[in-house]
């Protein structure tokens, strides 16, 4: 079975000590080595903390300069403990 890490972007509405998250207006950025980045709209998500690896603060300025159509990359591997 192939496992991958998801890259989900949204507005962080809440969290707790175990890093459970509430993410609003979320969308997944799907990276592929053959075509540009695809954005899949997800909506309101509650994510269990066990599944969270990294939470990054998006710099709106830098993000708006990205040409998603031209980015080619392998999807991130899933976490192996």
């Amino acid at each position: 079975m192939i496992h991958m890490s998801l890259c989900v972007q949204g507005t962080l509405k809440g969290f707790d000590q175990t890093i459970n998250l509430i993410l609003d207006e979320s969308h997944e950025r799907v990276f592929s080595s053959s075509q540009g980045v695809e954005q899949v709209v997800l909506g309101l998500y509650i994510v269990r903390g066990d599944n969270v690896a990294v939470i990054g603060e998006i710099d709106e300025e830098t993000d708006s300069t990205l040409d998603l159509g031209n980015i080619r990359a392998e999807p991130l591997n899933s976490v192996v403990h």
Partner: protein
Amino acid sequence: MLLTLALPCRCVFQLFYSFFKSLVGKDVVVELKNDLRLGYLNIKLTDISVTDPEKYPHMLSVKNCFIRGSVVRYVQLPADEVDTQLLQDAARKEAMQQKQ
């Protein structure tokens, strides 16, 4: 990137918490268990840059991030910031205290 500690740890790890506290403000590299390398211990990083941005463009728009402790494979530290002898001695003392 700058390393800052996010959450306090239990007293068992008190020694390493203090060790990491002494690293606050220094540059480190963090490698994650899913092979993504960025510049029970959660880590907050400011002003990050990915080591190989071509292979890992996923974090291009991220300057600051929070990393869940359970996914950190290891943290690469600048060698001249670490006094290994001191650390070894302190760890040994801590282990002795734990036994009692």
